[in-house]
């Protein structure tokens, strides 16, 4: 474990240049020293600002992302439309911004809910062991090995009305968003579940956990106050990396016409629209894909840097 150094008597007896550092400030220092990871973080923040400032920019320029103008199709860049207009005369830049907001929201919400589900399953499997553990881990292995995209396509094609959801809910734009978050969670929880289970198994044999058990602490108390806080680092890393994967899943589903549905823009469905126009207006197919690529690679660089900062042995320097 990385925090051993802090309790090292030799290190402690040396005069410290500054106040004793917490594990987290050490990690932050290591992360900050990693230029690639920080580059990823900065790029991600820029993309977030770009995406979430859509309403502000739309108001400032007086442009509505869903406003069509058939007299201004495929316009070039202008003061009003900075990146020109698409095949329906809609402002490309504003649609990219709004689409980015949706892609990022799906990515973050999906990653968090997958982490939550995975943590609960991992804690239960690791703590109770035995039959519960072997059943849960078999399911996990099964889901990991499955061809996920065909499965996601079937999930996405499900008629929610058959599950008893109301018509009104289906017609609101929210249904689309929640549906995609839920189906991605269904296939994405496995990484965190395995990591948390492994951490739980190894932490359970520590003395402080045995002591807590001997004092009669409940399973919930042990899991929440002794085990979970010590298993947080792998959860953070896996959740960060999941954001990128989820954005890729969302974009491919939207691209296939099964994720976020038009007129709500998402980077995926903008590419679907641009696919037929690849000869007429190739730039329309370039922007959304480049933004997906930039976002996902930023997340991956940052996540990889986090991993190295949390567990220096995993690095190769």
């Amino acid at each position, binding site marked *: 474990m990385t925090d051993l150094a802090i309790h090292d008597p030799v290190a402690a007896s040396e005069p410290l240049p500054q106040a004793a550092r917490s594990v987290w400030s050490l990690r932050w220092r290591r992360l900050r020293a990693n230029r690639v990871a920080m580059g990823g973080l900065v790029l991600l923040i820029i993309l977030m600002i770009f995406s979430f400032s859509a309403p502000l920019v739309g108001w400032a320029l007086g442009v509505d992302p869903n406003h069509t103008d058939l007299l201004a199709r495929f316009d070039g860049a202008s003061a009003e439309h900075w990146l020109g207009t698409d095949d329906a005369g809609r402002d490309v830049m504003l649609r990219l911004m709004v689409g980015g907001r949706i892609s990022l929201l799906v990515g973050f919400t999906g990653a968090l809910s997958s982490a939550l589900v995975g943590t609960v399953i991992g804690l239960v499997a690791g703590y109770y062991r035995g039959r519960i553990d072997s059943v849960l881990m078999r399911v996990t292995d*099964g889901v990991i090995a499955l*061809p996920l995209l065909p499965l996601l396509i079937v999930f996405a094609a499900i008629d929610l009305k058959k599950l008893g959801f109301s018509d009104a809910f289906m017609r609101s734009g929210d249904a689309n968003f929640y549906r995609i978050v839920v189906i991605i969670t269904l296939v994405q929880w496995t990484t965190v579940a395995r990591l948390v289970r492994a951490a739980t198994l190894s932490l359970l044999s520590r003395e402080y956990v045995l002591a807590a058990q001997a004092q009669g602490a409940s399973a919930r108390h042990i899991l929440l106050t002794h085990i979970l806080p010590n298993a947080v680092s792998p959860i953070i890393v896996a959740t960060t990396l999941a954001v990128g994967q989820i954005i890729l899943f969302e974009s491919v589903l939207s691209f296939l016409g099964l994720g976020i549905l038009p007129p709500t823009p998402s980077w995926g469905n903008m590419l679907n629209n641009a696919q037929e126009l690849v*000869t007429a207006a190739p730039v329309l197919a370039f922007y959304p894909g480049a933004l997906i690529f930039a976002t996902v690679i930023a997340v991956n660089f940052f996540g990889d840097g986090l991993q190295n900062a949390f567990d220096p042995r995993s690095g190769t320097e």
Partner: protein
Amino acid sequence: MTRFIIRRLGEALIVLAVMSFVVYGLINLMPGDPLDLMIASNPGWTAADITKLRAIYGLDQPMVVRYWHWLTAALQGDFGYSRVFTLPVTRVMGPALLQTTKLMGLAFLCTLLVSLGFGIAASLKPGSRLDRLINFIAFAGISLPVFWLALLLIFVFAVWLGWLPASGMGTIGGGGGFFDSLKYLVLPVITLSLSQIGNLTRFTRASMIETMRMDYIRTARAKGAGPARVVWRHALRNALIPVVTVLALNFGSLFSGALITETMFGQRGMGKMIYDAVLGNDFNLALIGLLFASLLTLVATILADIAYAVLDPRISLS
């Protein structure tokens, strides 16, 4: 060994049975039901006719009963008709499977060669310029949306340069020779391979670096073995063992990639077949396609376990 294989195959059958029930349930939750198209094309039918038809096709019965009927028929080799292709499901599956095997096999070979080469090259001098370049390529490969990559390749090589066909599986009236169909596979294979090399390169590199730190590598060096001999004879063999497992576990991801690639390049393989079946409410075809894809991944994981045991005698399967 034989007992292990039999046990794993038995487990795979159980998993497949559970999967078939779950997938059957999911597919029944797709919009419409198998009679909708018939009803739409026969406006003269009365409500009573429809109820009667529902009873004839067994659609008025609960899902579990219908699943049982489907299962007993399927076990006797009757997978039903595909509605989209108006052919028995087995006749649609055959050519699609062949097409996917071609695409995935070629992409698998390319991925393997490139990733092993990149991974080993990067591991020789960790932190060097070459290592960082390969690392960047690997990250780019992982982060690229496959369908966008396909669009870019189509734009550059088919629309702009005009070197290669954008989609299809052979020139119409072009004889359909082997080289003709190969030309149509170039872009799909490149697309699919590029989407897969990232993970495998990173994994190969990590595995090689870990192996190179082992004591026996130091021993080999101390005995005077040259760098090439250390890498090829001593390190690589051991470093590749975990890579084999990852290769097999990646099968699902390779199949997902093939689905996108086939859809983008108009290749009638398994992936596109499943996609078309789901969009066209073709219940029978979607069901069998999904189950077959799952079966293939299950077999791949079993093969990985076997390969693992064969390559590393320390691992016992029992």
